[in-house]
């Protein structure tokens, strides 16, 4: 199972839990299973069947370039990090992990 680190902005949805083990062979499955465990998390991470703008999914050590299709290995770390690169323009109606 993957080690999913819950971003600060989502911890209200996880009752303050900061790290959780989640099953799934792909990032999509991991996020779906996280949603099962903590309803409301998926809509804060996924939009239009992709990782939300203003957010990067890190699987292992680096931001993934394959989005929800990324393979997730056993014990691998998964992070969702707002504003990954420099020069980002965000905030249309909320940004990053906002609704």
């Amino acid at each position, binding site marked *: 199972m993957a080690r999913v*680190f819950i971003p*600060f*902005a*989502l911890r*209200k949805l996880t009752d303050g839990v*900061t790290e959780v083990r989640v099953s799934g062979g792909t990032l999509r499955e991991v996020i779906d299973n996280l949603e099962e465990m903590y309803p409301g998390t998926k809509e*804060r991470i996924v939009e239009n069947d992709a990782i939300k*703008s*203003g957010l990067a999914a*890190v699987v*292992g*050590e*680096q*931001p*993934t*370039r*394959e989005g929800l299709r990324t393979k997730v290995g056993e014990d691998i*770390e998964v*992070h969702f*990090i*707002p*504003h*990954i*690169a*420099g*020069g*980002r*323009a*965000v*905030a*249309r*109606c*909320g*940004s*990053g*992990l*906002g*609704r």
Partner: protein
Amino acid sequence: MVSTQEYKVIGTRPIRHDGLDKVTGRAVYGADIKLPGMLYGDVLRSPHAHARIKSVDTSGAEAMDGVIAVMTSADMPEAGDKIVDLGEGEINLKYASNHIIASGKVNFKGHPVAAVAATSTNIAREAVRAIKVEYEVLPSAITVDEALADGAPIICEEMVGDDLGEEVKNTNMASHFRHEFGDLEKGFSEATTIVEHRYDLAMVHQGYIEPQNATAVWNEEGRIKVWVSTQGSFSTRTQIAGVLQIDESRINVVPLEIGGGFGGKIPIYLEPLAAILSKKSGGKPVRILMDRTDVFDATGPTPGGWVNVKMGVNDEGIITAAESDIRFDAGGFPGSPVGAAAMCVFSCYDIANTRIDGYDIIVNKPKTAAYRAPGSTHVAFATESVVDEICEKIGMDVVEFRLKNASKEGSRRADGPIFPLIGNVETLEASQASPHWQSELVRDGGNGKLRGRGIANGYWFNIGFKSSVNLSVNTDGTVMLVEGSTDIGGTRVSIAMQAAEVLGIPAEDVRPTVVDTDSVGYTDVTGGSRTCYATGYAAYNAAKSLITKLTTRAASIWDLSEDQIEFSEGKFASKSDPELSMTFKELASQLNDTGGPVNSTGAVDLENAGGSFATHIVDLEIDPETGKTDVVRYTTVQDVGTAIHPSYVEGQMQGGAVQGIGWALNEEYFMSDEGAMENASFLDYRMPTSLDLPEIETILVEVPNPVHPYGVRGVGETPIVPPVAAIANAIYDALGIRLRSAPMNPGRILVALKEKNG
């Protein structure tokens, strides 16, 4: 681990392929473009930092002889509220469109309001003066504290901010996020020494020598061709397509030579204006050039703002906790590099308990853009100054403290991910052993001048992303290399060298060309220190593919199967018959008789980049009478992975250090209370020149990047990270005064000396 790998081409210093054109003036830049029937554009810019546009009357300009077209925001299509990925950062198309030409409101002085195309530059200039704009001037917010104060004027009224995941309206705070690991309170309770300070930085500009420019033709078939100085032809195409609501396939972007960018030439400014003016002129080409004042007023500098750092250490000198609050001014629209700053603020250290809050705040200043390791210099100023102060308090050597707490492979970065193989420790050790650090500082500079030495660390994460390269073999054994990465710092040669290494031929036999977006596959921006790494990787892949195809030709010639042939050191040879051997050049000469041309393509989209660390050492000499600071010795030490062309790696290290020195000592947007930059020329915005500085010494530490076939790491951005902090620490060493605001110019030094001495 330091590299011991030996190469034939990599690590040598061939003359760059574009060098002759550059030094003879033959290289073509944006201002050189002249096309048949070309018109000259100019832009009317707001004199106010914050105002509502009540009316725009263009009739005076339209009536002038020689004026062919006039445009306002009414000529722009309605851009959707959609975010587009540019490779290094994203843009919201709605804000991008409003940024390019104001719609209803101006958010900063210099914000475009209208544009004209005329038969001469002078007529265009006169025509913009004939446009009448009625403004309702609004109160402005210039600093992050003003913008967040109660009752502050709201700059983007429709914006909904994001405060730790919750929506916020009527705010200038576009975003507030947090990274938190471990138990911060517990960590600080374990500390025996705690230091906390706030560090303020002024907005500064990249100061590239060539102003922005664009020439565009929008023809009768609805196709747009743009000649431009840009760091990314494809990202320019994407932005134009998004703002003008036109298919990317109908836009061809021709990247010209670029006179510097440093991150500032990723956003578009003039391109849509030139294209619309061209369309309104019946398809005539329209060229628009900025002058230096336009560049300062209306292109993207790096943010001002402040960084608060609190750090605690125990009796053993171990950092037990660290906390940071980072507030950046984004300029007139959302989007500062505060996210990148948060990734870097504690990255030189392995700290169990951390919390980082980042704020992206809109102010009435130019919309910020990337500038060389965006955000990292700001936070290094704070963190490395606090570390210096802690070392003094606990009586520990500044390098030993850094080594004791250094992040390394397996350490967790304070925003979450685990570090792969990095060269932080090796860089510190090389600094410790350097002739500069080992030398004795002569503290008396003569004539009452005082000397001090400072040291600081810095980190930049680098990026990978997408690149494409095409190779084709000529029958004389030379190879054409076609790429989409605009060449800012010598990447033509460094990419050609990586292909040459694979092919076993001299770098001079690979001819690199940077082409337009119609002529090569998608390539992300030259930014994020990615080009030598990612486009070099694409060239490596293309060269490997070329060898595979050429092996098939050799097999055909010798009537062998491919697996009976090996390629090594530039020669194809039979594994079993020593008589059968051909050099790359000999085989190339037989291509026409064995099936014709051999071409290949390499394309990558890289996740892993491999970050880079640097340590800078500086000796300063300060005149307490005038407050003037001179750099008397400066050494940069950096983990560069594998130096493909050491001269250009050294050049990047020196250039970054020089820009950081300017940032530390002199440069700033000096703003009036009304939000006007009052030093918008190179006479008043003082950047260091070669006359101001000594030779910048360089020490290259080579810890190969394990995810690149040649171990390449990006090197271009990290060198700007440590200088501001290193200089602040050196000033303290010289004067016993800790300056916590940049620039640390003569005025600030004199005021601080007066406060200290009474």
